[in-house]
C-alpha cells in the first residue's frame, strides 16, 4: 500500500526538553489517523513540524517517497497539508467567504472576486456536507459552524491532509457528531485526517489507526480494530490507570446548600434557569448533567451571586444568602471552581503564589498590609498537598498546564474550608493523569463532609463521582436519579429533553439556544 506521507526519525529538541525523540509517523491516503498522547507528550510539536511551524533537528519527511522540505506553513499548504488549530484563526467581523479567501491571490486582478469565491465555496460545501451561508459574519456563528469554516478554508485550498488539533474540545455532542460525519466524508473523498486528541472514546469511534505518543516517543501504532481503550490508556500513561473512581459508601448528612425555584437570565435577557430547585447534602456529590448551554453555567454563577437572580432563593446551612455579595458568599462558605480556568478561575499573568490567595486576599493580612509570608507558606502547602507541578510559586500561573492550573484552583477552593463547593467542568481538556487526580480530590472533599455540586457534560464523570444526578435541559431539571442505579439511556433521553413519560418537555422545540445560527 502506498503511504501518502511519512515522517521518519524526527528529532526535535527544545532547551531542556527532548520534545520528539526519533518519532516515526505515517499517514495513508483516505484514512483518519489519531495521534494520542497526554499534554506534553510531543504530539503538538510533531504536528507543528509537519505544518512547517518548527524546524526539526534531524529526520525527514517524505511524500509518496519523495523527500520534501517544510520551512514554513506556506510550504505545507502548497503541499496540501492544512491545520485547524485549537484556537480558530478567523476574523470574526468578516464573512465566511472573506475568511476563506483571506491570504489567497486568485484571478490575478487587484480586486477580490467574492461572488465567484462564494460559488466555489457553495459547491465545495455541498460536496462535503458542510452546510453554511457564505455571507454570514463568522463571529455570529456557533463554535461548531466556525470550525466547519476552518475546515472549509483548508478544502478551498485543496488540502489533502488535514490536521485537527483537539477539534472536539469546544463542541457539544451534537456538533461533535456533525464534525465526525464531515470527517468520514473527507475520508471517502480520499483525503487524510490527523486527529490530535487525548479522548479515547472518540478515537475508538472514528479513527482507522492510532499512534500513541509518550515522553516524546511514538510508543505504539495500532489499527483500531485490534486495540481497546484500556490498552490505549496504558500505552499513553505508561502504567495501569484506574479511571473507575472508588466511592466509599457513606451516608450523606443534612442539607447544606439549598436552591429554591431559582430563575436567572443571561446577558441577552433570555431566561436560562427556569425554576430550579435542588438540595445538596453534606458528604454528597450532586451531579448536574446536560448538554453545554442548558443553563448550567448560569445556575452556578447565580448560586455565587455572580449573576443577578430574578427570583428564588439560595440557602446555605439554612441561612438565606440570596442577596449577599460574592465576597459574602465566599466568607460564608461557598467555594466555586469555574469552568473557564484561564479567564475566570485564575489570573494568568500573576504568579502561582498570588493565584493561591485569589479570593483570600483579605484573609492573609498583617494589619493594613498583606501577610505575604503567610500567603507564600499557604501557596507552598497547596503545591505540595495537591501535587501541582510548577517551577516554583513565583512562576506565572498562565504557564502551568491545564491540569496543574486546575489542581491549583481546585486546591485553593477546597482548602479555604467552605462547606459547599460548586464545581463546573473540572476535567474539561485535562489528560488522564490529571483527571485521576482531580477526581481523587473531589472524592476526598466528599469524604470530609463537604456538599459538592458537580456540573459536568461528561456523563462518565458524573456516573463515577456523583451520588445523585440531576439532568438539566433548557433551564429546567428534568429529573434526579440515583447514580448507582442510573442508566445512560435514561439520562441521555432526559438530556435531550424527553421525560420518562416519553413526551418531549415543554420548550424543547425552542431555538433560542443558538440565536445566531444560520444554516
Amino acid at each position, binding site marked *: 500500500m502506498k503511504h501518502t506521507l511519512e515522517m521518519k526519525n524526527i528529532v526535535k529538541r527544545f532547551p531542556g526538553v527532548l520534545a520528539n525523540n526519533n518519532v516515526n509517523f505515517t499517514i495513508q491516503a483516505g484514512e483518519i489517523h489519531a495521534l494520542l498522547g497526554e499534554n506534553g507528550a510531543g504530539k503538538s510539536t510533531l504536528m507543528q513540524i509537519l505544518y512547517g511551524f518548527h524546524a526539526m*533537528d534531524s529526520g525527514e519527511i517524505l511524500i509518496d517517497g519523495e523527500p520534501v522540505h517544510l520551512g514554513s506553513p506556506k510550504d505545507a499548504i502548497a503541499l496540501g497539508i492544512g491545520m485547524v488549530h485549537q484556537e480558530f484563526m478567523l476574523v470574526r467581523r468578516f464573512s465566511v467567504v472573506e475568511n476563506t479567501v483571506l491570504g489567497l491571490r486568485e484571478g490575478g486582478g487587484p480586486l477580490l472576486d467574492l461572488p465567484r469565491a462564494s460559488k466555489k465555496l457553495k459547491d465545495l460545501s455541498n460536496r462535503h456536507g458542510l452546510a453554511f451561508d457564505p455571507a454570514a459574519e463568522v463571529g455570529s456563528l456557533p463554535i461548531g459552524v466556525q470550525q466547519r469554516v476552518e475546515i472549509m478554508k483548508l478544502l478551498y485550498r485543496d488540502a489533502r491532509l488535514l490536521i485537527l488539533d483537539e477539534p472536539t474540545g469546544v463542541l457539544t455532542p451534537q456538533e461533535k457528531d456533525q464534525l465526525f460525519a464531515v470527517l468520514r466524508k473527507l475520508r471517502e473523498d480520499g483525503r487524510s485526517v490527523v486527529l490530535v486528541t487525548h479522548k479515547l472514546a472518540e478515537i475508538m469511534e472514528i479513527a482507522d489507526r492510532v499512534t500513541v505518543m509518550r515522553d516524546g516517543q511514538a510508543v505504539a501504532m495500532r489499527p483500531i480494530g485490534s486495540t481497546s481503550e484500556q490498552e490505549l490508556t496504558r500505552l499513553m500513561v505508561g502504567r495501569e490507570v484506574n479511571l473507575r473512581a472508588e466511592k466509599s459508601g457513606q451516608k450523606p448528612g443534612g442539607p447544606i446548600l439549598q436552591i429554591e425555584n431559582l430563575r436567572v437570565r443571561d446577558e441577552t435577557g433570555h431566561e436560562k434557569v427556569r425554576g430550579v430547585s435542588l438540595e445538596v447534602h453534606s458528604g454528597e456529590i450532586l451531579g448536574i448533567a446536560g448538554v453545554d448551554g442548558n443553563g448550567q453555567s448560569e445556575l452556578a454563577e447565580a448560586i455565587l451571586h455572580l449573576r443577578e437572580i430574578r427570583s428564588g432563593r439560595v440557602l446555605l446551612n439554612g441561612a438565606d444568602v440570596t442577596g449577599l455579595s*460574592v*465576597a459574602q458568599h465566599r466568607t460564608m462558605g461557598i467555594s*466555586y471552581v469555574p469552568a473557564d480556568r484561564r479567564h475566570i478561575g485564575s489570573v494568568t499573568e500573576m504568579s502561582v503564589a*498570588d493565584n493561591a490567595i485569589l479570593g483570600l*486576599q483579605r484573609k492573609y493580612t498583617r494589619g493594613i*498590609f*498583606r501577610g505575604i509570608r503567610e500567603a507564600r507558606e499557604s501557596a507552598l502547602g497547596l503545591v505540595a498537598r495537591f501535587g501541582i*507541578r510548577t517551577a516554583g510559586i513565583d512562576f506565572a500561573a498562565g504557564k502551568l498546564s491545564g491540569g496543574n492550573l486546575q489542581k491549583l484552583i481546585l486546591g485553593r477552593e477546597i482548602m479555604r474550608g467552605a462547606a459547599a463547593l460548586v464545581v463546573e467542568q473540572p476535567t474539561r481538556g485535562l489528560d488522564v493523569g490529571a483527571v485521576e487526580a482531580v477526581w481523587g480530590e473531589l472524592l476526598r472533599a466528599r469524604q470530609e463532609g463537604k456538599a459538592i455540586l458537580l456540573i459536568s457534560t461528561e456523563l462518565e464523570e458524573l456516573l463515577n463521582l456523583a451520588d445523585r444526578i440531576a439532568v438539566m435541559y433548557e433551564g429546567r431539571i428534568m429529573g434526579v436519579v440515583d447514580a448507582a442505579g442510573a442508566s445512560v439511556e435514561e439520562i441521555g433521553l432526559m438530556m435531550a429533553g424527553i421525560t420518562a413519560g416519553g413526551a418531549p418537555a415543554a420548550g424543547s422545540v425552542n431555538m433560542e439556544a443558538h440565536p445566531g445560527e444560520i444554516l
Partner: protein
Amino acid sequence: MLVTSFLFLSYGASPLQAYFALFHEPFGTLRGFGYSLVRTSPLALIALGTIVSWRSGFAYLGFEGCFVIGASATAWLALLAAPGARVGPIPFSLFLPLAILLGFIAGGVWAGLVGLVRARLGGNEVLISLMSNYVAIFILQYLVSGPMRAPGSLPETRPLPRTTWLPFVLPGTRAHAGILIAIAAAALVWMLLQKMPLGYELIVTGFNAAAARYAGIDVGRRILLAAFFAGGLGGLAGMVEVLGSQHRLMDGISGGVGFVGIVVALLARLNPVAVIPTALLYGGMTVGADAMQRRADIPSSITFILQSLAVLLVLAFDALRYYKINFAVFSRRTPPPAAEEVSE
C-alpha cells in the same frame, strides 16, 4: 540617541557638544539640577497617578484636567490664607496638610466622576477623560479671567502669599519641597500596589476583571477608587506646581505635563520605583534643551524628538524582544520550550 545625532548635524552643530549641553546643564550644575527637580515633581506625581489607574485597568488620560483642578483649588486656598484675606494667615504647618488634602481631593473627585461613569454606566474612560481635560482647562480660563483675576492685563491671579510657598530644599536653587512630596507619593504607591490587599485587588482587577469579580472583588468600586487615587495624584501635581514653582494661577499652567507624565509612566514601565529617576531624566532633558538652544544654537524642539524617540523605543521594546527570540528560533534552532512542555 544616534538618530538624534544626525538631527544635530543637520543644524551644523557637533552632536557631542550638543549632548554635553543637554546633560551638563541639568545634571552637572547646581542651578540646573534645581530646575530639573522643579520639573521632576509634577511629572513624577502624574506618572504615579497613571500607574495606579492603568494597573487597575482604568485607562485614564485626564491628568491635564486633574492638574489644573488641583492647581486651582490650592491657589484658591492659598489666596484665602493671604494676610488680609478673609481667613487670614494660616500657619504653614496647618496650611500644607490642608493644601495636600484639598489638591488631592479636588483632583480625585474630578477623575472620580469619570470613574463613576465607567463603573456605573459602562462609558469609555479614554474618550471621556480626554474630553474632561478641555472642560477643566476652560474652567481654569474662566477662573483666571473672571472671579480670580488679578488687576492687570494678564489672565492670572495675584501672586500667592509667601507664607504658602513650598520651602526651597536646595540652597541656591529653585528646587522646592515638591520633590519630597513626589518621593513620598512614590513610596506610598509602591506600598499600596505591592504590600496591601487593596493593591492586590486593584491589580487583579486590572489584569482580569472577570477573575476579580469571581474572587469577590467589587470591580466597580475598585475602579472608582483607582480613579480617585489617580486623580488625586494628578491634583497634587497641580498643587506642587502652583505652590512650589509658579506661585500664582494662570492660564496654560499645565503646559502638557498631564500627558508627559503618562509618557514618563510608560518609560518607567508602570513601576512606581522607577518613576522618580525617569521623571528626573525627562525633566532634566527639558531643562537641558533650553541650555542646548543657548549654547549649541539648536532648537530645543530637537529634545522633544529625542524624548519621543526614547518613548517609541521603550514601547517597541516588547516587540523587539519578541522578534529577538523568534530570530533565535531560526538561527540556532533552540527556541524556548512552549509552556505546555515546560510544566508537564
